């Protein structure tokens, strides 16, 4: 997800240069053959998609479910699994089209259109662009990879609602949330112009002989480069979803925790995790699957993919250790839950940075994110008394913000980052040159926009759902546990 459209004027000016290069390399074959997918890329994208599904089920289900009490374990599993299933269908029906598939229509900076609703026109031969010129992958592979992101993001939210929200309310809320909040935000950040389209438009512009042709070509080029989400156009860097996935779900979870209110007995009874074994399995599978999430986000299998993979590995290691040592010092004992919480915090933080930072930057990011998240889950949460049951705010939102902002710093080549190096970097003057202030403004814009849109939007949706079906079960039902009252089952019958 490393496309970084700069401001429109920068584009336009820069594309002349690109056009010349493009022209010269294409001189021999004017009617250049359409690129076909490389099978290594296809294999990697399918593998990545399977890995990201594994993050949700069983990964997230176990990570969250293990932290719940026995009487609510199944309710967590069911919610995660059902959300995944529902969003998979919604993605095919209209989500893909409006988020990424059809970037046309009057409000294209904010939302796409329905031209690919029901996957209309997508065939085994359809391809989509990657971030490299001349490299494409099967559209089905792209569509399903992005589907898995749309599946896991809303499932993260339930961390804030766990153990006290009705299943029917959760399903209705997520249906609305994914449609009205996730799909647009994914569009804002990840809907970008295909490199080859930009190159072709630039080439046409360069070749235009008459002023009229030039103007027409320029208009075409403008339309290509402006068919992107507004945050993408603003130059925000978010490789694999720091804002779209983690800040987005984390703030929605916090708002939910506040609106639904704390669990019965909160602050009085103890709510120890019913199975840290499950939480450990979940965290491990999240880690393994996250390679699909982050390294898959490069959309092809090359050296940059390997860098994203490495960053995902080392930031996680660093954050796991960091959380553990902070806890060791502050609380006197290094807990396993702390260790794996740190790992997840590291994964969250490195998500936006994974394709941009260098490994040493990723390690530093990992070392930093854990103390911050630790502070939120152990001090801020207690101080304010909100019941973010499974710490989706403290880990995902805070970790996501840390990562999103750090990305703006760590991309700096001086710090080992890759710089602003992708196909947009041909522009005049400072285009493609890293500038801390510019970049941090772009990052901050994305963070703020996500916090506000998702925070306010989620609040409205919770209220709507509360009116329609009621968010909270009866106290007796909550006491008895949602497994029996919502689902008529118990997790264990030893």
């Amino acid at each position, binding site marked *: 997800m490393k496309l970084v459209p700069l401001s429109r004027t920068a584009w336009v000016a820069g594309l002349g240069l690109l056009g010349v290069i493009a022209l010269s390399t294409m001189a021999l074959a004017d009617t250049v053959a359409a690129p076909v997918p490389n099978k290594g890329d296809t294999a990697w994208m399918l593998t990545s998609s399977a890995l990201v599904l594994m993050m949700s089920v069983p990964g997230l289900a176990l990570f969250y479910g293990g932290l719940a009490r026995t009487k609510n374990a199944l309710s967590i599993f069911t919610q995660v699994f059902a959300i995944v299933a529902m969003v998979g269908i919604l993605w095919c029906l209209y989500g893909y089209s409006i988020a990424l598939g059809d970037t046309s229509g009057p409000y294209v900076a904010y939302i796409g259109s329905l031209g690919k609703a029901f996957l209309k026109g997508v065939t085994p031969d359809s391809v989509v662009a990657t971030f490299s010129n001349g490299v494409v992958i099967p559209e089905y592979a792209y569509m399903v990879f992005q589907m898995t992101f749309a599946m896991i993001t809303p499932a993260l939210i339930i961390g804030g609602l766990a153990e006290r929200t009705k299943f029917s309310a959760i399903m209705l809320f997520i249906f609305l949330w994914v449609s009205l909040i996730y799909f647009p935000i994914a569009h804002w950040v990840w809907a970008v112009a295909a490199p080859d389209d930009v190159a072709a438009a630039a080439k046409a512009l360069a070749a235009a002989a008459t002023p009229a042709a030039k103007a027409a070509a320029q208009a075409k080029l403008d339309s290509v480069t402006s068919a992107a989400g507004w945050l993408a156009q603003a130059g925000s860097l978010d490789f694999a979803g720091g804002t779209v996935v983690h800040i987005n779900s984390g703030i929605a979870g916090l708002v939910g925790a506040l609106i639904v209110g704390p669990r019965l007995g909160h602050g*009085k*009874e103890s709510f120890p995790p019913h199975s840290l074994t499950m939480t450990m399995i979940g965290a491990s599978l999240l880690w393994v699957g996250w390679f699909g999430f982050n390294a898959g986000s490069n959309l092809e299998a090359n050296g940059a993919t390997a860098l994203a993979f490495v960053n995902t590995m080392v930031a996680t290691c660093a954050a796991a250790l960091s959380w553990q040592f902070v806890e060791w010092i502050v609380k006197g004992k290094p807990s396993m839950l702390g260790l794996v919480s740190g790992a997840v915090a590291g994964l969250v933080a490195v998500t936006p940075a994974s394709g941009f930072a260098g490994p040493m930057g990723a390690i530093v990011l990992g070392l930093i994110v854990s103390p911050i998240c630790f502070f939120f889950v152990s001090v801020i949460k207690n101080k304010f008394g909100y019941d973010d049951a499974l710490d989706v705010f403290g880990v995902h939102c805070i970790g996501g913000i840390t990562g999103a902002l750090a990305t703006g710093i760590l991309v700096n080549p001086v710090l080992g980052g890759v710089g602003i190096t992708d196909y947009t970097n041909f522009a005049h003057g400072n285009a493609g040159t890293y500038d801390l202030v510019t970049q941090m403004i772009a990052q901050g814009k994305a963070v703020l926009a996500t916090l506000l849109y998702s925070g306010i939007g989620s609040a409205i949706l919770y209220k709507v759902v509360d009116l329609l079906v009621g968010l909270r079960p009866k106290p007796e039902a909550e006491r*008895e546990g949602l497994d029996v*009252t919502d689902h008529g*089952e118990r997790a264990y019958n030893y």
Partner: protein
Amino acid sequence: MKIVMAIIKPFKLDDVREALTAAGVHGMTVTEVKGYGRQKGHTEIYRGAEYAVQFLPKLKIEVALPSDLAPAAVEAIASAARTGEIGDGKVFVVPLDHAYRIRTGERDADAI
């Protein structure tokens, strides 16, 4: 001496422990049990099969104490464990002949 044995709802354990401590009882033994009584259970469904679950999770608390402390302990338990809903449980008082503290060999009143 007596053993006061109470069946309570699980989430009332902390309240009961505090009430007993306030009543001067400083030791107890707790067992996870399943209770059957007037409180109705629920139905569980596993694919085709429906099961009526009639046994509900309860905690059993056993406290050995001098006979004169028993009424206060019973009262402490009963008021701490009461919700007013069906299934709140029972308190039983049974006779206790002897008590020993394993660590020291102390007996009876000294042992508890």
